[in-house]
């Protein structure tokens, strides 16, 4: 419970600051950054295994590591979006909401019971809907929030229906007892489909992805990065637990399902990303395609799947946050979010250009960035059943995704612009955050110890 208690403490600290004298934005932001950093560091000490609340909450080494990945993500967001956050009028509320969502995600990863899962899923979703509306003056932000809350309410309804069907079909909702009770009866499979649809909604799997582009475009960039990285990451972790441990007996059923979903997600994500002009929508569709790859890695029921997915989420945190970080810096200083405005960025802002290029290369899977290793391992995990068509389609999707990532790189480096974006001096926090992301992208891949560490965690 250590991580959760820490986050709860931070939330209360913020609440008391808000209720009391209140701090100016600058110092408050620094305070929050420090606290989040402490949170990240604390996540790596004192692992313990065990369960609480009669099996509703359990934790072990790998779950603690996954929570640390999410904490790193939130810490990086607080660094990277510092410029925008300083100007925001409601800074304590922002972090209270974000950290509440993070708390919900922590509980979700640790859940041992379908009801606990549902509860924490709600805790993870509702604050984010409020966060999506944080640009209070813009209509598009409110629209995003409305779309988010309505769609997630609908998907939660379906999820509840699925849970109740499972209870009716098997008589239990505990993760530890479910595998024995499952026997591929039609009602169980129907309930399983409802559950997968709820997972798919949060993960932006096709065909549950329609909310993604509009919500990502409308929300402020900090919220978009939170949604695309932390939210997806947490859902991935719990999805893997659900598939590999809880619904293990149904593995023949879900192999085909996941394979088709993965292909559909990759293809549709790639096709739509080709046409985007707004950088936030572009990154939204690219993250949909990434999820397709994650599903590919998950599809095979083996230890390699576990390790490669967790490893990929870590790399995805660094790469995607670097990309969103650069977009956030540019957006908060100049308000420009269109890829056409990025043309000729290299002439004025070489550091930002290289960071963005590196992040995009990592997302595309080009060595020596870490994204190459992540994607390669995912494909290796997905290939173990020897399904050549599947793997070939995945590899070809790599090529298509490269095309649209290169479009942005081309705009930055090669296209001429009469009025390129002027030289931006990001604050120290932003540069620090970007530096961490770049270091992560370059080091986590080539240095194999991170992967071996994760593998070791799974063996325990």
């Amino acid at each position, binding site marked *: 419970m250590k991580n959760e208690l820490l986050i709860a403490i931070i939330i209360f600290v913020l609440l008391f600051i808000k209720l009391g004298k209140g701090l100016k934005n600058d110092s408050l932001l620094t305070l929050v950054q420090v606290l989040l950093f402490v949170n990240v560091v604390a996540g790596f000490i004192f692992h313990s295994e065990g369960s609480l609340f009669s099996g509703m909450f359990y934790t072990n080494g790998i779950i603690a590591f996954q929570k640390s990945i999410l904490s790193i993500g939130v810490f990086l967001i607080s660094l990277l979006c510092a410029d925008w956050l300083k100007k925001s009028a409601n800074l304590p509320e922002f972090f209270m909401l974000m950290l509440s969502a993070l708390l919900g995600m922590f509980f979700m990863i640790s859940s041992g019971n379908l009801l606990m899962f549902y509860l924490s899923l709600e805790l993870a979703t509702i604050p984010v809907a409020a966060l999506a509306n944080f640009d209070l003056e813009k209509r598009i932000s409110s629209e995003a929030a409305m779309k988010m809350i309505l769609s997630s309410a609908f998907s939660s309804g379906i999820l509840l229906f699925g849970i109740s069907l499972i209870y009716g079909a098997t008589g239990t909702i505990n993760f530890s007892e479910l595998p024995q009770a499952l026997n591929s009866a039609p009602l169980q499979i129907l309930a399983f489909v409802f559950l997968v649809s709820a997972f798919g909604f949060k993960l932006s799997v096709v065909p549950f992805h329609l909310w993604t582009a509009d919500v990502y475009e409308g929300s402020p960039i900090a919220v978009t990065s939170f949604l695309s990285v932390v939210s997806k990451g947490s859902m991935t972790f719990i999805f893997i637990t659900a598939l590999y441990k809880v619904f293990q007996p149904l593995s023949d059923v879900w192999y085909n399902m996941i394979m088709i979903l993965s292909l559909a997600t990759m293809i549709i994500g790639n096709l739509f990303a080709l046409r985007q002009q707004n950088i936030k929508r572009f990154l939204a569709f690219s993250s949909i395609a990434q999820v397709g790859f994650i599903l590919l890695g998950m599809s095979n029921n083996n230890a*390699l799947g576990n390790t490669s997915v967790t490893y990929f989420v870590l790399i995805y945190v660094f790469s995607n946050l670097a990309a969103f970080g650069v977009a956030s810096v540019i957006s908060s200083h100049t308000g420009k979010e269109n890829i056409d405005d990025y043309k000729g960025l290299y002439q004025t802002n070489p550091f930002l250009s290289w960071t963005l290029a590196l992040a995009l290369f990592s997302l595309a899977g080009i060595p020596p960035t870490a994204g*190459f290793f992540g994607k390669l391992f995912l494909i290796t995990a997905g290939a173990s059943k020897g399904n*050549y068509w599947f*793997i*070939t389609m995945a*590899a*070809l999707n*790599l090529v298509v995704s490269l095309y649209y990532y290169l479009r942005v790189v081309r705009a930055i*480096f090669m296209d001429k612009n009469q009025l390129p974006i002027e030289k931006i001096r990001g604050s120290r926090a932003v540069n620090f955050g970007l530096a961490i992301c770049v270091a992560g992208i370059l080091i986590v891949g080539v240095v194999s110890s991170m992967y071996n560490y994760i593998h070791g965690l799974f063996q325990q």
Partner: protein
Amino acid sequence: MTSIALLFERNVKSVKVISLAGATIQFILCFFLLYAFRQEKILGNADDMLFQQNYHWFSSLNINFHVGVDGISIAMILLTAFVVLAGVLISWNIQKMTKEFYFLLILLSLGAYGFFISLDLFLLFFFLEVAVIPKYLLIGIWGSGKKEYSANKLALMLMGGSALVLVGILGVYFAGGRSFDLLQLSQIHIPVETQKIIFPFLFIGFGVFTALFPFHTWVPDGHSSAPTAGSMFLAGISMKLGGYGCLRVATYLLPDAAKEYSLIIITLAAIAILYGAFATMMQKDLKYINAYSSVSHCGFVLLGIGMLTKTAITGAVMQMVSHGLMTALFFAVIGMIYERTHTRLVNEMSGLMRTMPFIMTVLFIVGLCSLGLPGFSGFVAEMTVFMGAWQNVEIAYRIATIAACMSIVVTAVYILRAVGKTAMGPASPLTSVPGDRSIISDAKWNEKLAAALLVAGIVAIGIAPFWLNDLIKPGSEVIIQKLSQLVK
């Protein structure tokens, strides 16, 4: 061993001098490596791969940082060293974003060196991919003509090729008992049916890099739009990545499938040779001429690999080295001409011999090498391929060989036409540009050095081919052994 480790040394440049120094050091180290290798062989070391180093990398997936060299690898490393040094010299006068240019060039050479020495399939693939993006950036930023289009096309087609290679590698990984190691995999016999499925992926994937017909379409645009050093590297080294991959991975690991598909490979190679040659005749732009002729010459490489005899494979490797040097030289000369006359169209140039004697002489040399004049490396390589190809008695192979031989005539046509028109004849209006005559000058020191380097390589192989032959032969013997083992 140290030389291999040093080959990995990636210079972080801020000045051109550093990169020149780095390239020279690498160049010299190659000769040390060659010398050490020969010493070992003389001492009777009969291992297949010498100077191996093996470090654990991702142990759970059985991926190791396994590197080593044999004769074929050393030949390719020598080629890379020559071309990189020449490329660095040629680009001495690049104004725009010099630092990034050299950085990308060295990154490319890192990819090439790594590719040639890696003995682990994952590592091989890693280095193959490392090279793609620098090429994209080099062409897109410093190129000429329709550079963005060519850069895009090149990047996407090469990635497509690597995607297929990836599928092939994973197929081999799972079929060969979850090992990425080249040496281990060569001992394991993979069932023939699986081989027949995996082989096309690997061969076509690598073939895209070597301009296998019909996947050669990136070559003309890519080479022509690239900056000079970029073209030198692309045509000289990148296309050999594919040939080496075809040999080392596809044929070495999957010999039964190689036998089955050899007729198709040879047909495609022969088509590439002839098509490339005929297409070149139609070209008006010097760079396009060289690009299509590269398609044609690389067809020889694939022809040699497809024939599956020891001499043919040796010839294929020799053709890789020879063509690499030759085409790098050709692109270097074209670059020099373009800088001075600002045109690449043959029609607009003539009589340049008067004003640029050094450059034109080198142009003649490279042209004669390309059409296979004895005394230069082109003759040696093509001759070896033909002799090896003729050893196959079946009628289909013989027809392919004859067709390939006929392409020599076509090559002669376009080379003589292009070179003759450019160098000789009355001085064109271009050279008598009113105003400053000194714009049209002869080669500068860096260009002379680069050209001399490459010419030395060509002549060395042409006049004394035995050292290269002895280097490569043991390597091809190993491959042939595997082939004959499985015939029984």
